[in-house]
């Protein structure tokens, strides 16, 4: 921590910054102290004093509304075929470009008279399938790769990380476009392509965490007890790497949804007439002047979903980080 002595003595421009530093370092010391108290308190149940309750509630409202929105999206996506809505491709010519709250069309219809609510629900299926599959694949492949090279180091690490850097150096969207042009536009192909593009990110997170975890003495202790490499990787390292990677994946879900939207907007996602949020926005573009809701509603849905994912991911990650810091 910066000595307080020089702080008052620096030229004016620096004083503010310095005292800021001093304050933050003092904070960390106080937190350290608090951490120690925390350890001491482990066996007793801490009494919920005002601060605790206040903080929990403050984090609560936003967090739970975001969570509620995500649950809603997931439930609607899963139950779409059984919901009392028209089919996503059912065309209701008389009610073309109907505004929201038209009878039979809660959120109105698009330019072809298809029900927007229904297309959103079925679009959610595509978005969810692609994003979850891509993220899970990314976590499994990228996470394993990062963990393995982070543990063994050496030449394999150099090679893999060089490949990762090469992929990262490409603009993601351009790479996506090239790959989609190559493998086609099926659901599987789109998922695979997005997963492939995201692997380097997971590999980096996993490798960095593994490097730190491998230094911990419990890894050495396991080796001294006779644990073989595989056991060390799976029992000692993986449980400590998987949480940061998964927390990253939660935030990446949002990115993937936007990415899929971008592809759809460019007409390169799952083939029409299948609904996706991105293609809905793209098609609604034509009616922006007269019937903005056709593009606006899917945009808002996508916005809220990505925002909720980021927020929930952030909260979960910070909660997890605090626990890590307390150790």
């Amino acid at each position, binding site marked *: 921590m910066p000595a307080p002595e020089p702080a008052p003595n620096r030229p004016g421009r620096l004083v503010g910054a310095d005292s800021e530093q001093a304050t933050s370092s003092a904070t960390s010391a106080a937190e350290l102290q608090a951490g120690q108290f925390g*350890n001491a308190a482990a066996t007793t149940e801490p009494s919920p004093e005002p601060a605790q309750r206040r903080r929990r509630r403050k984090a609560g409202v936003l967090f739970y509304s975001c969570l509620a929105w995500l649950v809603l999206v997931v439930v609607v996506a899963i139950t779409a075929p059984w919901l009392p809505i028209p089919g996503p491709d059912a065309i209701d010519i008389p009610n073309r470009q109907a505004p929201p709250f038209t009878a039979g069309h809660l959120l109105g219809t698009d330019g072809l008279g298809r029900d927007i609510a229904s297309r959103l629900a079925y679009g959610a299926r595509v978005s969810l399938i692609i994003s979850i599959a891509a993220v899970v694949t990314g976590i499994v492949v990228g996470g394993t790769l990062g963990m393995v090279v982070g543990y063994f180091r050496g030449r394999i690490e150099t090679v893999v990380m060089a490949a990762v850097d090469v992929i990262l150096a490409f603009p993601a969207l351009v790479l996506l476009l090239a790959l989609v042009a190559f493998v086609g536009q099926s659901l599987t192909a789109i998922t695979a392509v997005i997963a492939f593009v995201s692997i380097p990110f997971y590999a980096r997170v996993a490798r960095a965490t593994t490097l730190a975890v491998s230094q911990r*003495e*419990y890894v050495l*202790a*396991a080796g*001294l*007890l*006779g644990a073989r490499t595989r056991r060390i990787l799976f*029992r000692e390292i993986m449980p*400590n790497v998987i949480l940061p990677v998964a927390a990253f994946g939660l935030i990446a879900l949002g990115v993937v949804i936007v990415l899929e939207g971008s592809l759809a907007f460019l007409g390169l996602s799952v083939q029409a007439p299948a609904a996706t949020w991105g293609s809905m926005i793209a098609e609604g573009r034509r009616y922006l002047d007269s019937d903005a809701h056709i593009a606006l509603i899917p945009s808002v849905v996508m916005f809220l979903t990505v925002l909720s994912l980021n927020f929930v991911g952030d909260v979960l990650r910070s909660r997890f980080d605090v626990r890590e810091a307390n150790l």
Partner: protein
Amino acid sequence: MAGSGTAHLRDREDIVLSVEDLVVEFPLGGGRKVHAVSSVSFDLAEGETLGLVGESGCGKSTTGRAVMQVPRPTGGSVRLRGADLTGLSGEALRRTRTQLQMIFQDPISSLNPRRKVRDIIGEGLSIWRPDADAAESRKRVDELLDAVGLDPETSGDRRAHQFSGGQCQRICIARSLVLDPDVLICDEPVSALDVSVQAQILNLLEDMKARYGLTMLFIAHDLAVVKNISDRVAVMYLGKICEVGTADAVYARPAHPYTNALLASVPRPDPEARAPSAPLEGDVPSPIDPPSGCRFRTRCPKAQERCAAEEPLVREIGPDHFIACHFPVDAPEAPASLDERSTAASSS
């Protein structure tokens, strides 16, 4: 290498661990290397505790880890009941090494935060006896938890972050004992703990040593702590041994100027005692380019030309009391080296 010598190694039946001319070097690139441990020798007899003491950077922790073969030493031998660990590899090393176990300085970083205490302690059993009866393993783990002073019922299913530093160190001790090792290497096991907790852990280590028949290598920088727990003490400076002997001899009659300086620096909790004054000037030289001859000569109040030219070998100056110094305090000067004597003899 003009070593620190092996005169202090004992030729006895009951030597459990014998380390001879241990060398650990870390390459830095460009041909330079860190001389972390340079030709260190010591041995441990059955049931004995050897304290390895020195300041930070003297190579004491590296020595402890090199004994465990992490990392593999650059040279020398580590014999556990006659079997040279440096010659073993793979499965043989994995099996033999379980006879040696280690406790570390940071008890919290020594425990996997994602595992329960019972799993952490039982790890050794589940590695070596995967088919053993679960109830039996659990009994063994609970017995160890109880032995280190933790209640198996309340603490067995918790995770490390729910314990204080002292309790974590107890868990580490229990883990290290699960495979009934012969030798326990303690690397600064109490320096991260508060004074009152430190005493608890030191007492516990003594109890465990008696109960499980352990031989211990106790590495620490705190001279009082080392004296309290050790039968014999080895003082290290910049990768070399300076002085070895029974704890009482080394502390009562320190003969090496460095041991003297260390002991004079220790603050004593007694206002009537003379305030320790700083007997040494300057800092420890870099282990990348250590001084020639005696490595302590750059800070030694008694250094002479001979100290730069010729490295002192370990020699006996009293019953079980050895030093590596040409001009010791209160002890006879080292005889001229063999080379000099032989050249003198041939010329005459």
